[in-house]
């Protein structure tokens, strides 16, 4: 393995990132190359130095400010129904509307004009002359 390739992998190694299938090759390279070993140590040390940077504490007002804004924007976070469910709901509402219309129409229309009632009336009525002849 060339130093150039090893150095890219050394950064991953210093960041505790899996090096992958070339791990064995890298270990062998490190055993032979003092320069890369020094670089690895330096990279690990840099990481430690960065981790020692003081942690900045957020101002106490931040939480309050965020929650005030969140309350103002409250409805936006409500879960939107999945698209498919929304389409299904619209179709169902449409069908329910048609069914309701049919029921209302049936209820308010005159009895004689209702198709089912007309058939019932026809069936219950006396046979006409023509019908008797057929029989």
């Amino acid at each position: 393995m060339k130093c150039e390739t090893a150095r890219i992998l050394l950064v991953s190694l210093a960041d505790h990132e899996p090096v992958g299938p070339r791990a064995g090759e890298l270990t062998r390279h490190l055993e032979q190359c003092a320069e890369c070993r020094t670089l690895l140590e330096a990279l690990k040390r840099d990481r430690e130095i960065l981790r020692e940077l003081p942690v900045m504490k957020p101002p106490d007002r931040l939480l309050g400010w965020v929650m005030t804004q969140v309350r103002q924007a409250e409805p936006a976070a409500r879960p939107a129904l999945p698209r498919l469910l929304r389409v299904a709901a619209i179709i169902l509402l449409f069908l329910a509307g048609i069914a309701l219309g049919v029921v209302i129409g049936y209820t308010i229309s005159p009895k004689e004009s209702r198709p089912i009632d007309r058939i019932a009336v026809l069936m219950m009525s006396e046979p006409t002359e023509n019908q008797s002849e057929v029989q």
Partner: protein
Amino acid sequence: MEAGVIDDIRLVEQARQGELPAFEELVRRYQGPLYGYLCRMCRNPDTAEELAQIALTKAWTGLAGFRAEASFKTWLFRIATNCCLNELTRNRPHEPLTDREPSPERWEPVQAFRNRDDFERVNHALAELSADQRSALLLSVHEDMSYAEIARVLGRSVNSVNALLYRARLTLRQALNR
């Protein structure tokens, strides 16, 4: 999956149902790391505060679109990083963090930094990095994110993050050696 992540998922689900206390808990949990990250990114505590506020509010309004493919933290940091990179490209003048004496109550040193000179040297070294290099480095070192998670935050491939961090670490090395 880690217990904290599972807990986050539960809180996110509750927040999506409109439960404000659940979202408040998420804010409590992540406001610290988010603010610290933004401070280091834009090097100005006031801008960091403003960006943290924007990012957290955006997270709330966009919660319906959050898919559990990534952790809530990764998703939140992606929002914040986008806000921050936009801010930085707008080239708003910022005052360097090192030039401003931080009020003691706002600094919470995990342990005393070696000395003031070291602290300034590291801050100047960080300032030499490009915004996306700095972002990748901070997410890796301070937030312990894997390269895959950093790739999600930055919207890049893992290989690209690898290359970004390689350049960042070498630039930092050179700057610290000066």
